[in-house]
């Protein structure tokens, strides 16, 4: 007898035994088996092995299991409990969802409140400074020292202006509610300049914007220098100059310069050797007598002569 069909592999025979071949493949394999004793014998061996293994598996695994009644009763009880829990679960889910929503809402409100407070404090701080080129009279009424006119007029800038200690600077910032603002944006200025007998007392110090307002520390410097010159020339009394600069320096500027706006929009690029990096409170400018003369000369070019 001739076997014209190729012999199926052991795997094919197993697939055949398990019914995993397609209809066409099954028919083909069965046709072959009908004609091939060798493959039929192999198929029988495979099926015997399967049968033996099934027995082995059945006898060896799970032979020690207890009767089903106990586990079934236990499962019934657990299913009943699970069904009860399931009826409460939608409410629990809603409750959980509500709780989570509440928590998320509360957190969002908290974040908004904190952020808003932060923004307001910044805005307030900046508003307090930028909208008020004049000091707070309650905090900075002005203060003078006991010094003669001769001393004032014979002293250099370095001799009358001393660096404000950092602790005092910080205290001034705190009192004015300025938190977190860059210190280089402000000058801890003397309301009554030392060049007019002003003291280093904290009641004479205030954080004056350097750049961001029209009436800033550089503009006040113009007034200070001009008044110093007028006082030392005898054209204005020292007490008048101290009073006018301490009560409302902007009005004093307008009065003595005969202008409603600053004569010179002072910027760092205009002054020689000017260094506006963090440094001494006078805007980082070098402490030298040259400053008095240069500034006085510059302003005198623009300032009207007394009497005119």
């Amino acid at each position: 007898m001739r076997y014209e069909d190729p012999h199926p592999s052991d795997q094919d025979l197993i697939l055949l035994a398990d019914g995993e071949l397609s209809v066409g493949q099954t028919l083909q394999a069965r046709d072959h088996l009908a004609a091939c004793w060798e493959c039929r014998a192999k198929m029988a061996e495979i099926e015997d092995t399967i049968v033996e293994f099934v027995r082995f598996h059945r006898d060896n695994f799970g032979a020690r299991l207890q009767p089903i009644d106990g586990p079934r009763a236990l499962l019934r009880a657990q299913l009943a409990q699970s069904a009860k829990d399931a009826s409460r679960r939608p409410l629990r889910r809603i409750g959980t969802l509500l709780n989570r929503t509440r928590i998320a809402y509360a957190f969002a409100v908290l974040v908004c409140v904190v952020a808003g407070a932060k923004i307001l404090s910044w805005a307030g701080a900046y508003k307090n400074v930028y909208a008020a080129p004049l000091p707070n009279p309650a905090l900075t009424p002005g203060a003078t020292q006991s010094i003669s006119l001769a001393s004032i007029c014979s002293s250099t800038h370095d001799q009358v202006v001393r660096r404000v200690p950092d602790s005092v600077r910080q205290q001034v910032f705190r009192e004015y509610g300025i938190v977190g603002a860059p210190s280089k944006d402000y000058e801890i200025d003397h309301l009554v300049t030392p060049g007019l007998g002003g003291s280093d007392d904290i009641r004479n110090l205030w954080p004056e914007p350097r750049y961001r307002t029209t009436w800033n520390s550089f503009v006040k410097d113009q007034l200070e220098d001009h008044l110093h010159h007028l006082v030392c020339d005898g054209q204005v009394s020292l007490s008048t100059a101290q009073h006018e600069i301490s009560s409302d320096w902007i009005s004093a500027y307008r009065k003595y310069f005969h202008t409603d706006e600053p004569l010179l929009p002072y910027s760092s690029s205009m002054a020689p050797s000017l260094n506006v990096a963090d440094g001494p409170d006078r805007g980082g400018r070098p402490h030298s007598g040259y400053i008095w003369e240069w500034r006085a000369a510059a302003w005198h070019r623009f300032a009207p002569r007394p009497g005119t």
Partner: protein
Amino acid sequence: MRTTPSGLTAAAALPLVAGGPRSAGPSTPEAEVILLFDQFRYRLARYITGFGLSTNDAEEIVQEVFLSLFRHLQLGRSRQNLRGWIFRVAHNLALKQRYANKRSLELAKDMEWSSTFDFGLERSPEEQVLSLQRRQRLMAVFTCLPEQDRCCLQLRAEGLRYREIARVLGVSLGTVAASLSRSLERLARADTR
């Protein structure tokens, strides 16, 4: 030629548990789960103990499987091939439990060898001894098989089709076929010695 033991025919397919005549069916998920429990509990426990887990662990896992099935049905999820679903869940839970137990899979040492085999009344003492020796050889070969091959064999013995086995183990159909072929060949060699 070997005689075919009573109750089994050489050409009989392995018992397929799925299907069967349609009946009115259980009306509630609870009743349905109990029905499936009665049908699969023994098979599942047998499969789970094949991982080297104790019967207590196997019973607990079976309970967990059917509780999960209950929740699955309650949520109205797919009812397609629940048998495969049950075995897949059991397989994963057994692996998890084994990892938790940190037991090594030395089945020959850890498993209690059952001596209560059903030899059948027709068997003579000599046949019983031979049968016992045969089982010992099969056990020795079985324990040396790679885990995937063992799982394939056991799942097939529990009546799952190749496609179901592939889904339970997360392998391809070809892998299942190759695994079974390889395992049966080894068992056959041990059986014929």
